[in-house]
């Protein structure tokens, strides 16, 4: 039942906040804070309560689950389940959700109620995505996070918001439709073989199908997740959406929405289609390297501060893609840490950029410069997160990237060496950011207010979090370890069980040879 609350609280808080916004503009903020605090508290409770169980394999891979029939005739159920991986990501969602509400405190003044409604419903969708194990339900949540996000960008965004929001919507919607097709394909194949209509993830797991079918279905999922992550060449929505969104929107986008893509790859693509996914691994490795290096190059070329930060996400998510397709424990743990650290560090950078924009009404770095002399605190903290983002050891991002690369090295040396070059690219854009904004002469004589108490409090929390992740990430690693191992085991069993299906689904050229378990191998 607790899982239902995790989804229901932000869902309900969103509605209440909308209504309450008519009475007083402060009310929605407090309602959301309260709702998210409750969600976060529940997650923390789960974390502490299940701490005993985590790390031990029990009969069920799930720490908590709930499975209620919903539309039985179609095999749709309300199936939510939580393992260590979802737990970590939901913790991050609760945390960044609260941060998003707090940073909007002054920035959002119009339609406050509706804004918070959208914010909360996006979060509901995200948390739902991390919990849903019924594919129909998953798709439902997947779409649920898009629409409110669209409104967040389109209504409270910056100058070019309409273009950005439509682009965001079309990209995610089209790719989402491909995923829907793949889900339905899987659904019908499963029915064809077992005469059971079901969207249940655990039942669909060992659906035997031909390699050809698996390949196409895998691609459907993969494209949806790759757009979300995003992977070059389907990344172009990201810069516009991140740049034009209000600060809270950017924090949610970078911190959480991108992670749903990675989560989908981990939860669905590998366990459902292990062979097809392994076969795709070499291409994914190349795409990851291209994302890492190309993202860094794009970031370096920007003059819009927020756009620069947006492009760094592409580079960082390249490491996530690399780690997922390396598919071993080192790399996967690195992926989890990279996701959390990136959420915090890039989220913080977006908040700082938002703070600057609020004060300067521009994001053009060539009009900035020398801001250190007027806002030393802001500068120092921005420097800190820029350094985190270039992967300085002792901060969370380093641990994530290092583990990913270490894991990937076992799989492909060439790819890893090329990906490691991304560290240089990250150094270049991070230092360039600091140079253009905070160092150099203060040409335009800016005189700005330094961070307020509210902003400092957020930043202090973020700094503590990222240092903690950098120096003692073990609690997090312990939480996700069993879940990741379970995913690897599931993928391995699926591969063992998978038998070539009947002719109807198998191409004629396909013989009856038994599918061999194969590890992900990059070139």
């Amino acid at each position, binding site marked *: 039942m607790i899982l239902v609350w995790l989804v229901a609280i932000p869902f309900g808080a969103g509605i209440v906040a909308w209504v309450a916004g008519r009475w007083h503009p402060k009310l929605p903020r407090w309602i959301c804070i309260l709702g998210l605090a409750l969600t976060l508290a529940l997650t923390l409770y789960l974390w502490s309560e299940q701490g005993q169980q985590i790390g031990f394999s029990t009969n069920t891979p799930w720490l908590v689950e709930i499975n209620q029939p919903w539309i039985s005739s179609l095999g749709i159920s309300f199936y939510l389940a939580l393992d260590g991986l979802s737990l970590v990501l939901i913790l991050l969602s609760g945390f960044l959700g609260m941060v998003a509400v707090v940073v909007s405190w002054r920035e959002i003044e119009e339609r406050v109620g509706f804004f918070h409604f959208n914010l909360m419903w996006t979060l509901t969708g995200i948390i739902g995505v991390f919990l849903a194990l019924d594919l129909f339900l998953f798709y439902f949540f997947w779409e649920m996070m898009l629409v409110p996000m669209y409104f967040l960008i389109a209504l409270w965004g910056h100058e070019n918001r309409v273009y950005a929001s439509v682009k965001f919507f079309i990209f995610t919607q089209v790719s989402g439709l491909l995923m829907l097709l793949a889900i339905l394909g899987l659904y019908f194949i499963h029915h064809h073989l077992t005469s059971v209509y079901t969207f249940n993830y655990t039942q669909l797991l060992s659906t035997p199908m031909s390699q050809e079918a698996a390949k196409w279905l895998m691609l459907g999922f993969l494209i949806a997740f790759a757009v979300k992550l995003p992977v070059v060449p389907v990344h172009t929505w990201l810069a516009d959406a991140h740049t034009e969104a209000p600060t809270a929107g950017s924090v949610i986008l970078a911190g959480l929405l991108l992670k749903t893509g990675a989560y989908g790859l981990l939860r669905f693509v590998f366990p459902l289609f292990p062979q097809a996914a392994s076969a795709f691994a070499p291409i994914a490795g190349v795409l990851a390297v291209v994302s890492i290096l190309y993202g860094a190059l794009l970031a370096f070329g920007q003059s819009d501060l927020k756009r620069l930060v947006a492009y760094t996400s592409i580079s960082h998510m390249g490491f996530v893609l690399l780690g997922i397709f390396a598919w071993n424990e*080192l790399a996967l743990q690195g992926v989890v840490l990279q996701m959390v650290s990136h959420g915090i560090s890039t989220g913080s950078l977006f908040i700082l950029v938002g703070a600057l924009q609020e004060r300067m009404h521009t994001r053009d770095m060539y009009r900035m410069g020398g801001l250190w002399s007027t806002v030393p605190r802001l500068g120092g903290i921005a420097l800190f997160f820029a350094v985190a983002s270039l992967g300085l050891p002792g901060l969370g991002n380093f641990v994530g990237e290092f583990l990913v690369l270490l894991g990937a090295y076992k799989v492909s040396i060439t790819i890893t060496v090329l990906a490691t070059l991304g560290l240089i690219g990250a150094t270049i854009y991070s230092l360039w950011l600091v140079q253009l904004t*905070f160092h150099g002469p203060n040409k335009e004589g800016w005189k700005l207010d330094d961070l307020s108490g509210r902003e400092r409090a957020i930043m202090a929390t973020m700094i503590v979090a990222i240092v903690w992740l950098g120096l003692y990430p073990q609690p997090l690693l312990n939480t996700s370890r069993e879940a990741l191992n379970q995913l690897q085991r599931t993928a391995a069993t699926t591969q063992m069980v998978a038998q070539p299906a009947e002719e109807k689904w198998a191409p004629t050229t396909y013989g009856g040879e038994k599918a061999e378990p194969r590890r992900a191998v990059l070139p």
Partner: protein
Amino acid sequence: MFDWLWLVPAFPFAGFVVLACWAPAKRTTAVIGVGSVGLSALVAIWLAVTFFASPPPGQAYSQTLWTWMTVAGFSPQIALYLDSLSLLMILVVTVVGFLIHLYSVEFMIEDQAYSRYFAYMNLFVGAMLTLVLADNLLLLYLGWEGVGLCSYLLIGFWYRDPANGRAARKAFVVTRVGDTAMAIGLFLLFTNLGTLQIQELMDRALGQWPPGSGLAVAAAALLLGGALGKSAQLPLQTWLPDAMAGPTPVSALIHAATMVTAGVYLIARTHVLFSLAPTVQWTVAVIGAATLLLAGFSALSQWDIKRVLAYSTISQIGYMFLALGVGAWSAAMFHFMTHAFFKALLFLGAGVVIQALQEEHSIFEMGGLRRQLPFTFWTFLVGSASLAALPVVTAGFYSKDLILWRAWSSPLGSRWLWVAGLTGALLTSLYTFRMVFIAFFGPVKKAATKKPGLPMKIPLATLAVLSVIGGWVELPSYLGNLPLFSDFIHRALPAASSLSVNGHQELMLGLIAGSISVGGVLLAYVLFMPGREFIERIAHTSVGAVLHRWWFADWGFDWLYDAFLVQPYSWLANVDRNDVIDFIYDGIAWINQISYHALSRTQTGRLRWYAMSIGIGATVIIGIVVFL
């Protein structure tokens, strides 16, 4: 007693946190900033005393603070390792670091960002101590990147000038290139040997890799990449001269005494790998020899007093690399120690001069400082003598002589390396005393307006004393044969095996080296003493001018990197700022819009048009049905 080891890096880190979060008034800042490093130095000295009095079992002590992470058999720890090598390092880092902090109290007093300065300096010392005390390569890498970051912060300390920012970024990016190689080296080592704990790693490497095996060569080469970046050796030396943009005590701390020697430390620490990879070790020696020569020539052509010292640093670290390359580990560490003393002294002396002459860097604008700043002159002279390795009285002589002797006598050494080292010694004397003669002798050109106070004099005096007596801990066979220092280092590192201990030969070589450095000073007097025109005439011949320009520009490395790496990357980033891939999607959107407009044109509202469309459509469909 050894339990206190963690305090050595902890004090400076604590100092950083306090200064960064609190930013107190100047007096408090000075107390915290200097005090933290001072306490750290006291602990280090006390550890040294204990280490000599009752050495820990196995000549090494390790302290595990906590396990950093445990993932699939990868469990690096936050653990410190103290043996004679790291003890030497922490002694030099904390003692010299303390003196430089003390000096900064006065040097930086006018600066508004006083607490930021000391915060960065403390962070730097903390990171450097982590580097040298790390028990595994990942923690070492943390310190390694930490000092890289601090050098960026301190070089760009006066951030208002974009040139400083540029120098700072250059330092970080160039060293990061080396660090990336090193990171790949770590991947290789862990994947193949299953640990990053240094001692265990060395044991396993010895056990599993035969000498000259491909993996050993690759691992050593990758670590060498990291070392080249941090220690500013060919071809990654270009960042160091520019790094002089930072405040002068920063140059003394980072670019003379500590950070740049990190590469030397790394190679000494992982010497087993280099022994297993003879080709790489040979490369180390060759790179060292080449660097010491190239940088020596460059130092000869600079006019900025700090850049002379910067090139001199590159050149002296070249000597250390030469020593490492011929397997003379203790000689390298010995030169590291003496170099830390005299180079810190020279930088601090240069700082006094620069401040006294209102930020004047050019030695040609100086002159006659001997009388104006006598105290500084004498200490600077001691430092210069030590750098030029004047025989018997200076510390530099003992360490450089040892390196030259090893380059000659070690099984890995060769005559050519010795000749290179000797030529370098001549160059060293030349450029050092060129600087001394031009800046301190001759007529006064600018009046010195500020005399150093006590906080600046104490470090100068102490370092001057150390620059003399620091060499007496290791006397060659012909001067009493007292290898105290080597014996101490050999508790951690293997002794260099000489072909045969030939006292007579060693004396001969020592005499040659000694006369070369004295000869260099005399030559410098002849060529550069103010009033001599001879050198000007050489420099104005066409060959002389070309050579001068070439040396002055560091042999064109900067130009090369700028033309082939920096410019193309910036150009590409600039051209692609709107992301060429987005054009595809824009194209799709455009096609959609075009077809939308085209189709909406057909919605005219005219009955005639619709009727005709229906007619044509029906005809086409019937045609298709009938004919196909």
